[in-house]
């Protein structure tokens, strides 16, 4: 057999293999070895294909940067008109209504635009959402990781996962037909009666729509992400930490507080901020329940609007280029804010769950 293969060996035959062995191999080989060998020797080393494949994958990965750049570029480009007209004042200016003498922020017919009421609405509704959602989310996470019977853990985790999978528009639908009437008939009257003196609950909006409705629906929507991320960082706390505290004779709650929550707190803050990022940009459900009025009110029961809601609500019916441009500028601001908030949150979560983002295998 060596004679058959000899011609395929590329360079000169220096050393004859010490294989002057008996001609009968120990294992009878019916394979024609030269056939396979000849085929494989003739195959290229595919260095070209390998390099091409590598760069194609790099290109796919780089597309992520491309998308961010593309969004930024297009939004900056299309918001030029509004930016040149108002500059940075867009984010804090107000106008006066010539008829009533009251402050006014958004007048598409006269091309007067200010983002103030939308920033206010976004911040207020998101803040309300966090206020309602965070204690619940942490409570659920503690229950699921530390106390829940094993049999319940799976179904409950699945339920929270389902909550996260429900589309925004369905939350909105439910908000319009169930939550808003519920608030209007049963919750708001109580709030007005008992807490009206704070000025936060005024009896001037009979619809049930408004900041509170938006805050409640946002709370329901960000609960799953906050609680599942909190769960993740809590499970990342090493078991030894819990045992160390338990060994000192702590009760279960003391163990959770000192052994778990204290070690996971940075990650939990990250989870909360990530929830904030979601709340800031949430569009459909908020649009459907916030009332869509570009006004600022102290009362949580008043109609308002948010940055995402005004875009969704007015964009296709915008009355002119300036109106479009102003809406796109609000979108740009929303984009930059959510990028910063998400990046910050991501760093916090990574700090806990992975040690450091730049970890090698």
């Amino acid at each position, binding site marked *: 057999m060596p004679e058959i293969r000899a011609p395929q060996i590329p360079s000169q*035959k220096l050393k004859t293999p010490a*294989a002057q062995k008996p001609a009968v191999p*120990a294992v009878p080989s019916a394979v024609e070895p030269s056939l396979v060998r000849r085929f494989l020797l003739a195959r290229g*080393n595919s260095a070209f294909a390998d390099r091409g494949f590598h760069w194609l994958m790099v290109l796919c990965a780089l597309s992520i940067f491309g998308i961010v750049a593309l969004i930024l570029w297009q939004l900056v480009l299309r918001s030029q008109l509004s930016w040149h007209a108002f500059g940075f004042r867009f984010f804090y200016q107000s106008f006066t209504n010539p008829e009533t003498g009251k402050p006014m922020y958004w007048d598409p017919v006269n091309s007067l635009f200010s983002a103030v009421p939308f920033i206010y609405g976004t911040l207020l509704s998101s803040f309300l959402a966090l206020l309602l959602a965070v204690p619940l989310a942490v409570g659920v996470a503690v229950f699921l990781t530390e106390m829940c019977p094993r049999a319940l853990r799976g179904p409950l985790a699945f339920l929270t996962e389902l909550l996260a999978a429900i589309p925004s528009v369905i939350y909105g639908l439910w908000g319009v037909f169930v939550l808003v009437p519920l608030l209007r008939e049963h919750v708001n009257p109580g709030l007005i009666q008992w807490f009206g003196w704070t000025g936060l609950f005024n009896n001037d909006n009979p619809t049930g729509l408004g900041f509170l409705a938006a805050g409640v629906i946002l709370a329901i929507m960000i609960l799953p992400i906050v609680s599942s991320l909190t769960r993740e960082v809590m499970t990342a706390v090493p078991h030894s930490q819990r045992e160390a505290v338990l060994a000192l004779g702590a009760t279960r709650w003391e163990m959770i507080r000192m052994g778990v929550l204290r070690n996971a707190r940075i990650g939990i803050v990250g989870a909360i901020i990530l929830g904030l990022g979601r709340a800031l940009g949430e569009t459909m459900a908020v649009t459907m329940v916030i009332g869509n009025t570009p006004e600022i009110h102290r009362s949580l029961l008043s109609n308002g609007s948010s940055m995402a809601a005004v875009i969704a609500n007015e964009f296709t019916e915008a009355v002119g280029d300036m109106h479009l441009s102003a809406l796109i500028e609000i979108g740009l601001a929303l984009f930059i804010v959510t990028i910063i908030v998400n990046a910050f949150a991501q760093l916090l979560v990574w700090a806990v769950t992975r040690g450091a983002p730049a970890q090698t295998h």
Partner: protein
Amino acid sequence: MGVGIEVTNLNAWYGANHTLQDINLNIPASHATALIGPSGCGKSTFVRCLNRMHETNPIARVTGSVRIGDLDIYAEAKPVEIRRRVGMVFQRPNPFPTMSIYDNVAAGLKLNGYKNRRSLDEIVENSLRNSALWDEVKDDLKKKSGASLSGGQQQRLCIARALAVDPEVLLMDEPASALDPVSTSKIEDLIFQLKAQYTIVIVTHNMQQAARVAEKTGFFLNGRMVEFDSTHKIFTNPSDKRTEDYITGRFG
């Protein structure tokens, strides 16, 4: 048929770690050569340098030369080409989990673009016969997945997979260390038969295994090759004190 391997001044690093230092040896063709030594001595790194598998780790670096037959594998070829000529069997059986037994054996050819169906059937059968697995699996070649076999069968499947590309050299990195005694003895029988056809280099931490299957044995310690001689001499009358200490169990 197997070819000889000539290693000259081989040095290897993993990052700053100098794992192989000035290795020189000639591995004879169509024999089994065993490499022994305590864990971490560099013997696994050494066999990986023989088919450039160490390059899958980006921090690895090598100097010196390795000739397999008449091919300088670092100067004259790409890793892909060398690995087609130098088969490798790993410490833990690693059949492709999503493939049937048949596809596992045929993988080396199929994935390299071999299309001749009929000869493929023949090659698969022969490879499985040569790895003493044929009788156990011939009835469900395409039905069962490679991962459904027992550990020992999986390792013989991996050997069949390596044989299917008709290599000139077969590297075995502790092929029986994850197996039970019965499976281990089957693998050893196999090596004993295969060495007539292939040059076999087997890394082992089991000295009896080296003594049973290999004509030549090399002893590695701390990244250096202390002694390389006939297996008989190494185990009965080693010339180096350190080899003797290791053989007699005084350390390692």
